[in-house]
């Protein structure tokens, strides 16, 4: 077994749990429909990524494309614990976060196809998913860079609540709706643990009580480098949090309900107390780092072991067997599950068609969105203009 797998303290497939229904867990208060929605979100991401892989093989998607397969519970379980207007920011493995946040799969796929209807009008690509209406501040390609942005988003959210005291949506209205306390989720890969910018960011967040949660989606590898080969104290990353004066927690990312139950109280605590936190979220990616990865650094066995505790299978099992309605029928029937599968396939097929049939960006879009206030002589060769409205706005 590789270092990474050892780190993750893998055991063989865990026995299905019988969830104690005694209260005290955040998820107990949730209606069954919400849990079914989580399952649906995870299945949507899985199907979406499968279709991405196909489209990539057909050269309909270019550049780098990093799939989220295996990690679905991480985005779905953490985002479920936020409010829709809490800002979030992530790295380049970002399709899952975008979909979990509610981005239209068509806009997400069209972006990868380089189409005008994409969430960034075809100017961003797979690594740059932005969705303003859903408070998703990107997809970022430089390992670790987004951790400073997330710190700034949370800083601004705190400033809005504490200094402006009113939502930025109506800056002119003093004393109208009071601003609320927010939390920013900032996702990073385990590889970003070794970037200076994360450490500067965590220091600032600890210093100034910035309500940001750094979520390390610890899938054990950065490309082909197992975590312990690149990161000190890989067996206890929370020590890093401690060093910056913030709460650090290790959370299992394979069971979405457990994940939510562990994460929700942390989000609530950070929001209420306006403090930062750090989460070592154990997860695993089933596929290669990007679309061209022979995966010589890990064994097939290791991958299979992780697949055996697949978060989607597990959630489906829980909803179809463990969670019961009042009349003791399972909250998800076999039929309902099949319908779910069908509707997701249909939804992603639509997204593919939408991306396929959408127009490429107009040639004039090359010179738009460079400046919000274009003026003459900004460039010796280019004349900047205002662009078409972003399809998400």
């Amino acid at each position, binding site marked *: 077994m590789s270092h990474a797998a050892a780190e993750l303290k893998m055991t063989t497939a865990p026995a299905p749990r019988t969830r104690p229904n005694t209260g005290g867990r955040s998820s107990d208060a949730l209606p069954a429909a919400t849990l079914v929605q989580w399952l649906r979100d995870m299945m949507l991401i899985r199907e979406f990524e499968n279709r991405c892989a196909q489209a990539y093989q057909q050269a309909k998607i270019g550049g780098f494309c990093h799939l989220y397969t295996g990690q679905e519970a991480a985005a779905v379980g953490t985002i479920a614990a936020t409010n829709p207007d809490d800002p979030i920011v992530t790295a380049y493995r970002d399709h899952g976060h975008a979909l979990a946040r509610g981005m239209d799969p068509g806009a997400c796929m069209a972006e990868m196809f380089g189409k005008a209807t994409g969430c960034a009008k075809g100017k961003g690509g797979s690594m740059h998913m932005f969705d303003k209406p859903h408070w998703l501040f990107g997809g970022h390609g430089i390992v670790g860079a987004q951790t*400073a*942005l997330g*710190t700034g988003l949370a800083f601004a*959210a705190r*400033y809005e609540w504490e200094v402006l005291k009113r939502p*930025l949506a109506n800056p002119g209205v003093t004393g109208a709706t009071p601003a609320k306390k927010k939390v920013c989720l900032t996702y990073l890969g385990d590889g970003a643990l070794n970037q200076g910018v994360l450490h*500067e960011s965590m220091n600032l967040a600890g210093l100034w009580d910035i309500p940001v949660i750094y979520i390390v989606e610890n899938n054990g590898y950065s490309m082909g480098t197992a975590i312990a080969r690149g990161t000190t104290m890989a067996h206890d990353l929370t020590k890093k949090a401690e060093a910056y004066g913030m709460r650090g927690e290790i959370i299992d990312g394979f069971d979405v309900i457990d994940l939510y139950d562990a994460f929700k109280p942390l989000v609530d605590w950070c929001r209420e107390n306006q403090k930062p936190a750090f989460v070592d979220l154990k997860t695993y990616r089933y596929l290669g780092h990007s679309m061209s990865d022979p995966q010589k650094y890990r064994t097939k066995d290791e991958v299979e072991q992780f697949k055996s505790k697949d978060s989607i299978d597990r959630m489906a099992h829980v909803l179809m067997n463990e969670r019961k309605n009042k009349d003791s029928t399972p909250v998800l029937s076999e039929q309902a599950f099949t319908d779910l599968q069908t509707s997701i396939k249909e939804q992603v097929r639509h997204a593919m068609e939408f991306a396929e049939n959408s127009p490429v960006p107009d040639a004039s879009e090359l010179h738009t969105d460079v400046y919000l*206030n274009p003026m003459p002589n900004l460039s*010796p060769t280019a004349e900047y203009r205002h662009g078409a409205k972003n399809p998400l706005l």
Partner: protein
Amino acid sequence: MTTIEHTIELPDFSKPLPPREGDRVIQFREALREAMSEEMRRDERIFLMGEEVAQYNGAYKISQGMLDEFGPKRIIDAPISENGFAGLAVGAAMYGLKPIIEFMSWSFSLVAADQILNNVPKMLYMSGGQWGCPVVFRGNDGAGGQLGSTHSWCVEGLYSNVPGMKIAIPSNPYDAKGLLKTAIRELDPVFFLESERMLGDKGHVPPEEYYIPFGQARLAREGGDCTLVSFGRPVHFCMEAAETLAQSGIECDVLDMRTIRPLDIDAVIESVKKTGRVVVVDQCWPFASVASEVCTQVMERAFDWLDHPPVRVNTEDVPTPYAKNLEAAYLPNAGRIAAAVRNAVGAK
């Protein structure tokens, strides 16, 4: 679903600018402070962050007294983490605030290069127009006086290569205030380059509010024999050279560009069509510098009007030396500028 809507209103540029002459004489650093303070009084979304800006009153006393007026939530002492706080400003600006980030020196901005070159100017494009990044980054640029190689950076050569931000480089208190106020009101990110060597310079700064539009050069001196183009501190060397040259009957137009992105090339071309000669003075290294860019644009647009190839006067193409005499020889100075002009006009 709620969206973040925020508007930063561009100033009204239709009002004529107040006279440059007068007796309200203040220092360059005070002009900068007035610009920030006036805008901060107007708009609570603005905050100032940087090393030593608050309790220490500014490493160069630019923000003196601002902590007292605006308090620690808006005048914020940052630890020495340029990449961290530059990136924090990016996130804060995307969210809807208006950060002013002071780099103690632009030399130190190099450790924040990823944030200021990858994120700041590209966010609007990468997000397909969803988020701009209206941060003002400001600080000392250029040789400060025997600070040696690592502390004497002129970043405009490097940074002006990147599309997406605007770059202002004032040479005097009047322009410093008017340009900084405009920078703070800009919708786009602005790199604002000051000079440690000019912070104590004094000049009239009118009491009334004014905003200097970007992309408009100032004709600092008029003459028909040669066009001198510069920005920031070397404008003064040009004025000195022009003074000397006038004594031998050579008259120069001196253009203070004030901003280099946008670059008021129209003003340069207009002058070159009159003089037939251009000398560009730039305190960056010569290779792929702003001076090279100006020379190229002149050749592209006014080749037929030229009586002499465009000339650039840059710093010497070596790391910045420490020794006083070597540093003086390294920088562009009035002597080198005057010699270049004499050469161009054919007067020996």
